[in-house]
């Protein structure tokens, strides 16, 4: 299998395995090849050939692919899975950078690893640039350090005349060394400017425009639409359709944050008073992790987000669901609803109710989200109640207070919150 092909297969496998758990993700199911496949391959192939570094890229990939490919021939069984795992642990120990690349983004062991993984045209050329520069500059580093070491240890005539060497001479080193360096730097400059040009703007008109606003310490996400009735707000979880460029307008409500979903694109600061633009595109369905990349205060470490790329159909379905207001309150949940209005509604909004607070995330479809507290906890009923009662323990300094609730209050509130699908 050629290197390029292995790259193709990898991308293809990824697209199939999105969202599955680690073990099943290793079992390829080679069914039909959809249109997404060719899209991913074309972009990957195009970039790789264009920059002429497909060999380095593919060898890195192939290294990581060897085992899963073998496992696929014999079909899935637990022994090969364990062997596979052992291989991967060894690989991790050896290289320290090895991730589990054959999995979808959401099951990567290093979800922010932009060096070995990229899933969209705003990130892939940059990843290749990174490979080329790393390879080239590492080689130069080794050569120059080798020269230094040879300079130190090389044999010299042992007779110590007490004389001092002449000052002249040796300038050839400076001329040749600097000349070669200048040549290489010029080449790298041309290459990085090409990449900059390639990733600065999307090739086609963005299918969708979102406004992402950074708050201490969470993300507000507004989906724009020509029809005001179809606009909606959510938080901390961005859904996008696969294979389409999405324009992001980046704002800040308080201090400077930076939007960064490494495997989709580099980071851009969100600066109060300015609207920065960036674009992302995911060519493979999956969950892509992001994190605030500009120091923004006490809980900077806990300001994460997720981008979920899904098929057009799934994305439309999700959008429809998000546009709906919350379900009417059943009699059973009256108490919880009242508690919510008293304690939560001042800061949080639930569309279709009197809760219209704008200081915290919109909770209309809270349970549609995979994580809460800007990625800090998975969204389970237990975590949710722990978060509500001990927010300051989890995220010291956050505007969300730890809310004291009696047991009966807690269960009533939990019951109401469970209706926010």
């Amino acid at each position, binding site marked *: 299998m050629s290197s390029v092909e292995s790259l193709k297969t990898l991308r293809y496998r990824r697209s199939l395995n999105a969202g599955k758990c680690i073990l099943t993700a290793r079992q390829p199911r080679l069914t039909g090849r959809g249109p997404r496949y060719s899209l991913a391959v074309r972009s990957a192939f195009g970039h790789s050939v264009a920059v002429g570094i497909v060999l380095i890229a593919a060898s890195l990939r192939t290294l990581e692919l060897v085992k899963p490919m073998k496992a696929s021939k014999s079909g899935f069984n637990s022994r090969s899975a364990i062997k596979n795992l052992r291989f991967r642990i060894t690989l*991790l120990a050896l290289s*320290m950078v090895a991730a589990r690349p054959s999995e979808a983004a959401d099951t990567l062991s*290093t979800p*922010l690893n*932009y*060096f070995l993984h990229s899933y969209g045209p705003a990130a892939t050329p*940059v990843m290749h*640039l*990174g490979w080329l*520069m790393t390879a080239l*500059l590492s080689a130069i*580093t080794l050569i*120059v*350090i080798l*020269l*230094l070491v040879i*300079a130190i240890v090389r044999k010299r005539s042992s007779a110590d005349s*007490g004389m*001092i*060497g*002449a*000052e*002249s*001479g*040796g*300038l050839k*080193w*400076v001329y040749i060394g*600097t000349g070669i*360096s200048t040549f290489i*730097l010029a080449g*790298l*400059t041309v290459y*990085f*400017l090409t*990449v*900059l040009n390639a*990733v600065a703007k999307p090739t086609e008109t963005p299918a969708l425009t979102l406004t992402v606003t950074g708050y201490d310490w969470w993300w507000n996400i507004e989906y724009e639409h020509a029809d005001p009735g179809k606009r909606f707000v959510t938080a901390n979880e961005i859904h996008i359709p696969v294979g389409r460029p999405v324009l992001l307008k980046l704002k800040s409500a*308080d*201090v*400077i944050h930076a939007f960064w979903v490494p495997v989709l694109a580099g*980071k*851009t600061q969100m*600066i*109060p*008073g*300015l609207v*920065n*633009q960036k674009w992302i595109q995911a060519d493979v369905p999956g969950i892509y992790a992001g*994190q*605030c*990349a*500009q*120091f923004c*205060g*006490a*809980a*900077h*470490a806990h300001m994460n987000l997720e981008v979920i790329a899904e098929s057009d159909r799934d994305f439309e379905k999700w959008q429809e669901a998000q546009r709906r207001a919350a379900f009417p309150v059943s009699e059973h949940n009256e108490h919880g609803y009242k508690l919510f209005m008293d304690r939560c509604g001042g800061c949080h909004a639930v569309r279709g109710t009197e809760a219209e607070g704008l200081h915290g995330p919109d909770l209309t479809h809270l349970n549609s989200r995979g994580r809460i507290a800007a990625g800090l906890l998975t969204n389970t009923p237990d975590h949710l109640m722990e978060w509500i009662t001990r927010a300051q323990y989890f995220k*010291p300094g956050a505007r969300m207070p730890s809310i004291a609730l009696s047991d009966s209050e807690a269960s009533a509130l939990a019951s109401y919150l469970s209706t926010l699908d």
Partner: protein
Amino acid sequence: MAAIGATRHRIDPPLERIPEVGRIPAGSPIEARLEKIWETAPGWRGSLSTVDHKTIGVRYLVTAFLFLVIGGIEALFLRIQLVGPEMGFLTPEQYNQLFTMHGVTMIFLYALPVLSGFSNYLWPLLLGSRDMAFPRLNALSYWIFLFAGLFMYISFPLGQAPNAGWFNYVPFSGPVYNTGPNIDVFALGMVLLGISTTVGSVNFVVTLFRMRAPGMTINRVPILVWGTLTASVANLFAIPAVSLAFFLLWLDRQIGAHFFDVANNGQPLLWQHLFWIFGHPWVYVVVLPAMGIVSDALPTFCRRPLVGYTAVALATMATMLLGFGVWVHHMFATGLPTVALSIFGAASMVISIPSAVAVFAWIATIWLGKPVFKTPFLFFAGFVALFIIGGMSGVMTAAVPLDWQLNETYFIVAHLHYVLLGINVFPVVGAIYYWFPKFTGRMMSEKLGKWSFWTMFIGFNAGFFPMHIAGLLGMPRRIYTYPSRMGWDEVNLITTVGSFIFAVGVLIFLVNVVLSVKRGARAGANPWDAPTLEWAVSSPPPAYNFATIPTIASRHPLWEGRIEGEEEHSRTKLEEGYLLMRGRETLGTSPIDAKPVVILKMPEDSYTPFLVGLFVSLLFVGLLLHSWTFTALMTALSCAALSVWMWPRRNLGQRTTRHDPASAGRGGEGP
């Protein structure tokens, strides 16, 4: 002088006299008289009033090393917190204060002051002078540095230390999001420190162009002098930007100005520009003198002069010049237009070229020389290796789209530590080993020295190299903790272990210093057989530095006559020279050719620098505490102390009112 003299002495009264040329044998009564003129009074009076550049230099070094140790301990606390995922060793607020103070301490209170220490101590000795151009300004520079350092730690024990990072971006550091005294301490402290750096820089610039021994033409000064000169000139342009930025921030915070306040049409991005217009040149300010140290000291251990003196000197200045045109590479992710980013990205690539010149010059020097493997050599050679690694990772960050990924990750942390520890700390420690005999008259232990080098070198690489990988794995900077699912556990564990090994290496070095001060083997005037002028005087040097002002004939005064293929030329005269001993005197020379021009009368020791420093610092304390009466009082006292300092005194005049045709207009001119 002769050319301009004709027009000049129509206005100016004539110079006083022409100095005699002669010798002062060691131990002679004349030498004792000279000693008496220059010595500092014993006891506390002397320690508060001294203006001896050597004392001030040592003070700078000791104070900077204390700050290095404090900053290092802070770093170890941070590393304990990050040793594993979700550790609770520090609270987020403690973590933020510690990483901020770590940066502030290392960058502002260690990195430049330690180099100022070397330069203060060495410049007059390297240049063949008796002191810096403005000895009292020199003392003031130190006192304000010390007080500014203490000032910035004033709120640390209260748990209210600066907490917005050393870069201190608004609006997070503004009045709305940071209500405590944390940032006020930082802002005022930086303005105060700026005074120290500015007066120090002025002093270096004037010293270079005025105080060189006769014959030390501009192409004979050591590279350390080029480095410090370049850095000082840069400071004069860069410091105003940062002082202004911090002053405006303080106005925003305390009197309701709106320079950075979006709600009132202020602009937060302005802060980033002002800060990095200062910040990037500063990076070169704290490395160029250290590179100069290596360029001067490495040849001693290679038994040959530096390869490409002119190229390295020019590269030093080229780096600084370009250094003013690359600040936007700290701001690639701020949404500036692509064209602007391209220009600054390309400029950041170009700045690597002068560094390549220096690196190849050092390697060639070692290659063509006969290395002597003493401890300083190990540190300098280690420095070259670390510089190469740090330089290469720097090239990666210059590539704009790649920097959009690398920026604000641990890759940058790795890069900047390779640069700052590699190019500043390693040469500095090497330089301490090298000049310790000159400072103290004793050698440092070679055995402990080699232990300290290898422990530091291995610990450094074990600690900081994995940070590159953490960065490529997407670990952002300045996060106080991370969940295990991110896959950063192993690299952080290794980094923490490495950082502690490095700390042990530094500890071995400090132990070596302490032991050697008392028990080191006695050193002669020139224990390394080095070429430069500071090794011509005894170790430690006498208060007056040079009994007679020497006349210099080459770049390597102490190697003359032993260099292979050397052409015959007039020899440097170290024993015989101008006799200057009517009070504190030294020789002023012309800026380029170092022709004798004038006898400079140097001021006596004085309490005024200490008092001005103290009152100005208390003035800032008054501003911090909003105690306006106290502030006004301190302003008045500062002015009073300055007036005493500046009061004209006849005995410092260089010209005479008596008309003496014999010496008119020719005072100081050599034979």
